């Protein structure tokens, strides 16, 4: 069903594009990234059938065609990964949309990715796209979301974004062979919906983005199938998971003052089975060009709160994040991000390191490490990952 929807969307776009291109000057671009990746989990697996070594390959093709001086176009980004974990072997259309902009409005139709928010350690207000939970641990990879987006730009009152979201995409969880999973493997098809319309529930969202002086402010509301499944535990101990219908109001504010960035994001989510607030706030300060040669060192600190307590899927219920971003601003764009999240109520700590660098003009290399330290056995979610510290190395070639 989903594939048919995507295919129809693609064919109609294609026909439309063809009709348009015959009369107007167009520009086309094609690009392909091939990535090889190796993940090594150096601690003994907690659950049976989990592996230690995960070699993997990913392809990221991109194509765009623009006309009408770039005010109209079609954009495509595909994704394919092959991995030892069958569930992590997956493909997706990240974006495939037609876009038209004219004067003070912009319209997008198709599969698209939209980002909301300002903080670094957690992305609370960002709700339009489903998280690609098997792709990365940090939750920053997203699945393409079918939508009609209309943006209205005013010079005085900021930008108003309206979203019509006709289809919900389920989150994929690691399979039997995968790490970073629960004791019980969650099959995404077993996770149902509160809504009778299931994935075809017609959802809506709205965002207002305003900027004045040092302030960037976003206010958003989402009404529809939640992106996070809700886990409920029955008195007999069986875990039931489903996507609730939620109303979520979000606010995000950043104040940019000299080398300081002050940030806060907060949400209030309401569903029949759940009602909570969550907050993340903190600051980023950058010492720039400290060696006179371009070296920037940024310091980050954020506090994370989630009223759901241990049921928070992110496991960030009352935690502190600290980190440092080091950018060399050299020809190779060398950068390092190190950080740690520590629970303020118990010993659980997650340390992370991400480093990247370009080689020549078409190659990049990345190193990532995530270390789960002293994870408290009482942690409902995180305790499952306590032996899943890993090192990841990836090399990409761009064509």
């Amino acid at each position, binding site marked *: 069903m989903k594939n048919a929807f995507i295919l129809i969307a693609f064919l109609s776009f294609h026909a439309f594009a063809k009709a348009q291109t015959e009369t107007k000057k167009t520009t086309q671009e094609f690009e392909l*990234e091939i990535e090889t990746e190796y993940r090594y989990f150096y601690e003994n697996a907690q659950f049976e059938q989990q592996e230690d070594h995960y070699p993997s390959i990913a392809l990221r093709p991109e194509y765009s065609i623009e006309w009408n001086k770039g005010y109209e176009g079609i954009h495509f980004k595909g994704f394919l990964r092959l991995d030892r974990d069958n569930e992590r072997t997956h493909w997706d259309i990240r974006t495939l949309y037609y876009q038209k902009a004219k004067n003070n409005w912009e319209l997008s139709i198709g599969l698209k990715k939209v980002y909301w928010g300002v903080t670094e350690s957690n992305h609370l207000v960002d709700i339009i796209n489903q998280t690609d939970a098997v792709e990365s641990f940090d939750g920053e990879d997203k699945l393409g979301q079918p939508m009609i987006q209309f943006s209205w730009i005013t010079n005085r009152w900021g930008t108003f974004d309206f979203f019509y979201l006709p289809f919900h995409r389920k989150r994929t969880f690691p399979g039997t062979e995968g790490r970073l999973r629960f004791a019980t493997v969650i099959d995404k098809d077993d996770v149902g919906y509160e809504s009778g319309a299931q994935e075809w529930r017609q959802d809506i969202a709205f965002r207002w983005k305003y900027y004045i002086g040092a302030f960037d402010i976003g206010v958003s509301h989402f009404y529809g199938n939640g992106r996070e499944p809700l886990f409920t535990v029955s008195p007999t101990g069986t875990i039931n998971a489903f996507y609730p219908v939620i109303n979520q109001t979000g606010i995000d504010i950043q104040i940019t003052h000299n080398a300081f960035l002050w940030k806060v994001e907060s949400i209030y989510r309401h569903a029949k089975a759940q009602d909570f607030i969550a907050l993340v706030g903190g600051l980023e300060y950058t010492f720039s060009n400290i060696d006179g040669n371009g070296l*920037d060192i940024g310091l980050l600190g954020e506090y994370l709160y989630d009223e759901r307590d241990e049921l928070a899927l992110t496991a960030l219920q009352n935690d502190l994040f600290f980190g440092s971003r080091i950018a060399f601003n050299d020809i190779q764009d060398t950068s390092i991000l190190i950080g740690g999240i520590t629970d303020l109520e118990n010993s659980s700590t997650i340390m992370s390191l991400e480093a990247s660098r370009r080689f020549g003009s078409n190659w990049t290399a990345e190193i990532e490490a995530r270390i789960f330290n002293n994870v408290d056995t009482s942690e409902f979610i995180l305790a499952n990952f306590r032996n899943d510290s890993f090192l990841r190395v990836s090399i990409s070639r761009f064509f």
Partner: protein
Amino acid sequence: MKTSIITLLFLATFTVGIAQTPQERGIEIAKAAETADLGFGSSTVAIKMTLKNKNGQTSERYLENKTLELTEDGDKSLIVFNSPKDVKGTATLTFTHKQGSDDQWLYLPAIARVKRISSNNKSGPFVGSEFAYEDLSSQEVEKYNYTFIKEEGSNLIVEQDPVDPKSGYTRRLVTYNKDKGYRIEKIEFYDRKNALLKTLTYSNYKLYKNKFWRASTFNMVNHQSNKETLLEFSDYNFEVDLAEEDFSQVALKRAGS
């Protein structure tokens, strides 16, 4: 009585003419250069950036720049990277202000995120090049104090002292060409220790719309590190007729997608 007033006026004019201080002459030249470039409205241009290290090895970047002229406040500009391919689509939106720090946003295409960034880092290098951020930002008259130094043929040399203490320079020596619409021929940059740091040479000037001089080549040489950055501008378009909406965060995302 009448004669004495005329004499007085004459004397006053004469005194101003002779005793114009180097500071007054300096700012007059900077303002003349600004006036000569008024009214371009908006423009787009493609840029090839070649970075050369001290051993002569080179690395290239391709960018596109859009500029919107504003008179009450500083200009707005949007820069998009087309290469290297791993950063393709990365884009910046800058609102220059005549007073105070500029407002700047960065678009990261991999996660489709727009991030407001600090414009505090004036002296840091722009994408590993020999151009500092402050070298590439819109040159508003209010950002410097001026001292006229000397006249050489049609060239006027003016010293510019940055108002902002975060600038990486104590002074810049700017060579204006008064016969060619006060276009800039050369800038010498002196670091915080007042040692010559860099020389920027503008060449291959072309006249657009019979009024606006634009150099096709900027060559920045760093005398201390012996590194060089060459900017080559092509496909200047002054007929694009861009509006404020083309410099919104929505437009920033569109440019990087």
